[in-house]
Every structure is written in structure tokens, then in C-alpha cells.
């Protein structure tokens, strides 16, 4: 068996697929359908592409319902489960806050007025779903699949590889990782987690035989005003950053989607509730 590593860009990140194949086999036959599948998901659910299904749903907010296929209904159902599980802290309508919050080095704090103008447009309760369709009740409201979409693509990619007969491979979509079986010699994939204090250093190595690992960090995208740091994780109810968020959380689960949303919810809940949430999940995690 020979290890083939392919790098490509999609979903706004650098991605990697590693496959063990018999000597004579071309990786292209396996990689190409996977990249096509990832591109399909990106095109359908991108908030940047005006002709995506997601953009169509948002453009029709407050105007009319939009017909949905089974896949999108499934994603919305998943988003609802996350919303319920987190008591409303995970809300796919909260992405609209990005209009006023920016988290690069020169960013400044938005004004209270700017934030309070947007908060009324947030709320999962205003996403009206019926079989085969969805209607965003308020004009100007938006949904996006941040925190779900990339993880879903990783699961889909892994599933496709499995269906094509791959037993030893790994999909890494910008840090959302799903293993398709262990390495060819039966040993686990070794997944290094960056240290929040020293991002260039690997701080822990997780062995991964099957399943997925997802990581969320609050240390990379922050605004520092004086001694106070504002992280990019926003409370959908107030429109303000989570104050006592973990620096970094990693979770191992069967599905990358689940690992990703458990991680995000732990961040959104803050250290105290988040720690309890992670402990009670029964999953393997690393939080600091």
C-alpha cells in the first residue's frame, strides 16, 4: 500500500486528503469525485455566491418560502437539534452579526446601536419550516451553515471514499478531520492540536483510528481593546462576544458534524457550562 496525499483549496480553507492505495492504483479516481462533492456542497451552501441555494433562501427572507430538497431539510433539522441542545446559543441566524463585527488586527468595536439594530433579526424561531420548504419570516434576516457545513462536507467526503472501497484514509478540511479507517498498518492517524498559548507548537497529539475530530479556538480571531479581549464567538441573544470562552476545544465523535457542533456549543456556553457540557457528552475532548 502506498500513501497518496492531495492538497486542495475549497470552503475557504486549505484541505488535505490522505489515502492508502495498492501500488498500481491511481488516486485520481478516488480524489476527483471527493473534490467534486466538496465543491458541490460549497456551491450549494456558500453565503458568498449569490446563486447558491443558501443565498436564495436569504434573498427571499420576509418575501416568500423557498422550496428545499431532502439534503437541505436534513441540514436545517440538524441545525435545529444544535439550537435545542444548546438552549438557543447555537443559532444559524446569528451570522448576520458579521456585518458589524470584524476580527482582524485593525478592527474596532461596533457601537451598541449598530448591534442592537441587528439583534431583532436573529432568532431560530423565525425560521419557519414546512415539509419541502423554508421561510425566513423577517425581512433582512439570514441563515448560514457556519459550524456545520464544512464538517458535513468532511463526513460526506469520508462516506464517499468508504463507498468507493477505501479502508485507510483521512479527510482534513481546514482542521475538521474525519478518518476512514486507521493507517494501512493499523496504527492510528496522529492528530496534533495547536497550543493556544503558542500556536506554532503542537500541544497534544490525539490518536484517531476511526471517526472524527474537530477543533474550535477563540484565540486566533480577537479584538484587543486595552486589556480586554473580544473573541469572535458571539452570543446570538445579545450580539456581544462570549466573555469566558475556552481558548480551544477539540472533540472526538463518530461524525465530524457532531464533533464540530459539540465543540462550538462548548465554546458558546462559556467555560463553566461548557466544561459540564463536554463532560456530560461522554465524548473524548480537550478543552483549555
Amino acid at each position, binding site marked *: 500500500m502506498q500513501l497518496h496525499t492531495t492538497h486542495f483549496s475549497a470552503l475557504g480553507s486549505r484541505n488535505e486528503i490522505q489515502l492508502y492505495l*495498492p501500488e*498500481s492504483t491511481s488516486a485520481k479516481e478516488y480524489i476527483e469525485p471527493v473534490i467534486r462533492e466538496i465543491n*458541490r456542497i460549497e456551491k450549494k451552501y456558500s453565503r458568498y455566491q449569490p446563486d447558491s441555494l443558501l443565498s436564495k433562501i436569504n434573498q427571499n427572507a420576509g418575501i416568500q418560502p423557498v422550496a428545499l430538497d431532502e*439534503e437541505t431539510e*436534513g441540514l436545517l433539522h440538524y441545525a435545529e437539534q444544535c439550537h435545542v441542545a444548546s438552549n438557543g446559543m447555537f443559532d444559524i441566524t446569528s451570522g448576520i452579526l458579521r456585518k458589524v463585527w470584524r476580527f482582524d488586527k485593525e478592527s474596532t468595536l461596533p457601537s451598541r446601536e449598530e448591534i442592537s439594530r441587528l439583534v431583532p433579526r436573529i432568532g431560530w424561531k423565525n425560521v419557519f419550516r414546512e415539509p419541502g420548504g423554508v421561510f425566513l419570516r423577517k425581512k433582512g434576516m439570514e441563515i448560514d451553515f457556519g459550524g456545520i457545513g464544512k464538517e458535513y462536507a468532511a463526513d460526506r467526503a469520508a*462516506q464517499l471514499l468508504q463507498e468507493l*472501497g477505501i479502508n485507510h484514509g483521512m479527510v482534513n478540511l481546514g482542521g475538521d478531520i474525519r478518518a476512514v479507517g486507521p493507517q494501512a498498518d493499523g496504527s492510528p492517524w496522529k492528530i496534533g492540536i495547536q497550543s493556544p498559548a503558542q500556536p506554532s507548537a503542537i500541544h497534544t497529539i490525539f490518536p484517531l483510528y476511526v471517526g472524527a475530530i474537530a477543533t474550535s479556538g477563540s484565540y486566533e480571531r480577537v479584538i484587543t481593546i486595552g486589556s480586554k479581549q473580544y473573541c469572535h464567538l458571539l452570543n446570538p441573544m445579545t450580539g456581544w462576544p462570549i466573555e469566558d470562552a475556552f481558548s480551544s476545544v477539540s472533540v472526538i465523535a463518530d461524525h465530524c458534524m*457532531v464533533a464540530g*457542533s459539540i465543540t462550538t456549543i462548548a465554546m458558546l456556553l462559556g467555560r463553566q457550562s461548557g466544561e459540564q457540557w463536554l463532560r456530560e457528552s461522554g465524548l473524548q475532548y480537550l478543552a483549555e
Partner: protein
Amino acid sequence: MAATKARKGTQAVACLNSAAAALLGISAPAVAGPPLNLQTDIEYVRYEEEGGKRMTVDGPRISIRAPHGEEAAFTLNLSHESVSGASPAVVTFSSGNKPNITLSGASIQETQNHVDGTYTLYDGDRSWSMGLGHAKENDYRSRFGSLSVARSIDQGNTELTAGIGFSSDDIQSTNDPSLNEKRNTSELSIGASRTISPTRLLQTTLLNRHGRGYFNDPYKNTFCIGCGSVFLPDLRPGERNEWLLTSRLRNHFPESRTTLKAEYRFYHDDWGVNAHTLDLGWIVESGTPWNIEAGVRYHTQSEADFFVGSYTEASRVNQGETVSSDYRLSSYGTLSSLMRLSRKMSDASTLDFNMEHIRQDPSLHFGSTGSLFESMDAWLLSVNLKQEF
């Protein structure tokens, strides 16, 4: 903080797991799109009948497929083939009533050049293609074009296609410089392909082609005993309506790393020709740098209404106006066996060696024995290099 105590963890994980499993249980649509990189396919083909005694065809073929942005692709096919030898010109009877194919006196020595290009635009679940092409020999010229549309439905698991095509041909003859005839053909096709699973694909297409104009072969004659002229020119109807139904199944078996290919074609035209072709192939990924494909193809066809081996003045009256002794319009069968050895050179290139033996024999005709032609053996050999950049 506004964070309140969340739903109890394990229960939440169970709910999320079940929602994720349900979502991933929806079969993922297969996606069509332009190739990710430039692809080239260079092939050298040699075909010879009866060890090169009858007809040989030699030459390179080049195919280039290039992405144009993220949503379009361009395909260009070029070929340059030299044809030499002689195509059968007339059928005569030797003793024992066994027909002989007499080769035309002047041996053919010509080149065939072919170029065609297709531009395809991909737009979500649809794609549009437009193609144009040109083929030229020293006594024949064809210009052709096509338009087709494909649409995927049912989460992309089913693809429907429809297309139209036209061709305009000029037919000349080196034997008769005054001959300058035309033939126009139009065709319609519809098709559906269904991805039953990521490893199983079923495809069916139906094509109807309608041609009007000059269909005679200016190099062919029919032998007539007792007619004023011994050799009568090939004379076919001025119109032809053809139907072709093709069904394909491709099944990959990941466990054994093998793939089964099966194809059946049914052909019918209003000249009375009915043909059935069955193609079976088995690809084995051997675990060495070499992969092997082995296959067999069986073809059987009935003769055209106006086909005769040869005839007499008396039978000529019943024959009507049209007559041809072209063996391609006779009833016969062929059995081909083919072998492909594929050598993976790198992740981006593959070298293929193809070998096909074709046995054409009247006794291979399904049911009654076919027209009384002699059997023929032919070989098709090709080397092919596929490269991705």
C-alpha cells in the same frame, strides 16, 4: 452571561448523532463538472484485415480536454489516419457457388483527417454542449455539428440528456471525376443515466438518425450473370432512417477491486438491417503497476432488403431498382476478443496497450447462416497515453 444550562450532554449527543446519521443517509448526488486539470489522451492505432492483405488503417489520435474557468470545458479531438489496401469491390461466384470477394483493381492509398471540438457549460444541475467538426478524405468531406443538454434530477442521481446533430457530406470518387454528390443527415438522441450507488451506473440512450441524399458506394459493383453489363453499380435508396438503442451497466466491486462493464446495442433501419451487439468486459486491478481488462463482443446482423451476393438477368426484375453487394449490408456475425494492459506511470499518467481480434463469419450470424461470404480476421492494436497536468 446568557448561557443557561443546556440539554443534558449524552442525550444531546444522541440527538445530534441521529440527525447527522439521517442527513448522511440521504444519498449524495453525483456531480458532473469540468475536469479539474488539463487532460490529454494520445493514441496510435493500427487496424489490419487478413494480416494486412485487405485493408490497413494506421495513425495517431489526439484528444485534449481542458477546463475553462470553473464552469466550462473544451474538448478537442484530432486524428490523422492513412488507409491502404483495397476494399472489396465485387462479388463473383467460383465453382461450388461460393462467393468470392474480388478486390478493386486500384489499391486505395489515402489519408483521413478528422477534427472536432466541443464546448460544454456547466450550470448547477444542467450542462449545455455545442460541438463542431470536419472530416476529410481525398474523395469525401463531412462537416457536422451538435447541440446537447443534460440535466440531473433526483438529487443528481439521475441524469437526462437530449441532443440534436447535423452533418453535411460531399461524396466524390477517384474512379469517376464527374461524381459530386451530397448527403445530409440529422439526428436526435435522448438518454438517461442512473447512479444506483457510487459503484453502480446504468445508462440508456436512444438515437434516431435520418439521412437523405447519396448513399451509394461508388467503388462497389454487383456481379450480374446475363445482364448487358456484367458489373452493375451499387445502387441504394436515397433515404435511410436508423434507430439505435444502447444500454450500459458499469459495476465496480471495491472488495475485489474489479469492475464489470456490460453493454447491449440494438440497431434497426428501414433498409431491413437489424443488428444486436453485446459487449462484456472485466477490469481487474491486479495490485501490481499493471491492470488488466479482458472482454468479448458479439455482433449479429441481418442483411438489407436489397442486398444480393450476385444475380441473373431474370432475378434482376424481381430485385427492383436498388441493389448492393457491400458485405457490410449482408447478414453475418462477428466475435471479438479484446485485452487491455494498463500501466500506471505516475499519479497523473497511464499507458494502455490494447489488442483486439475480430472474427467476422457468416456462420456467426444468429439463427440461420448468414450471407455466403468468406470469413475474415482482423486485428486492432493501439497504444494510448493518458496524461493529466
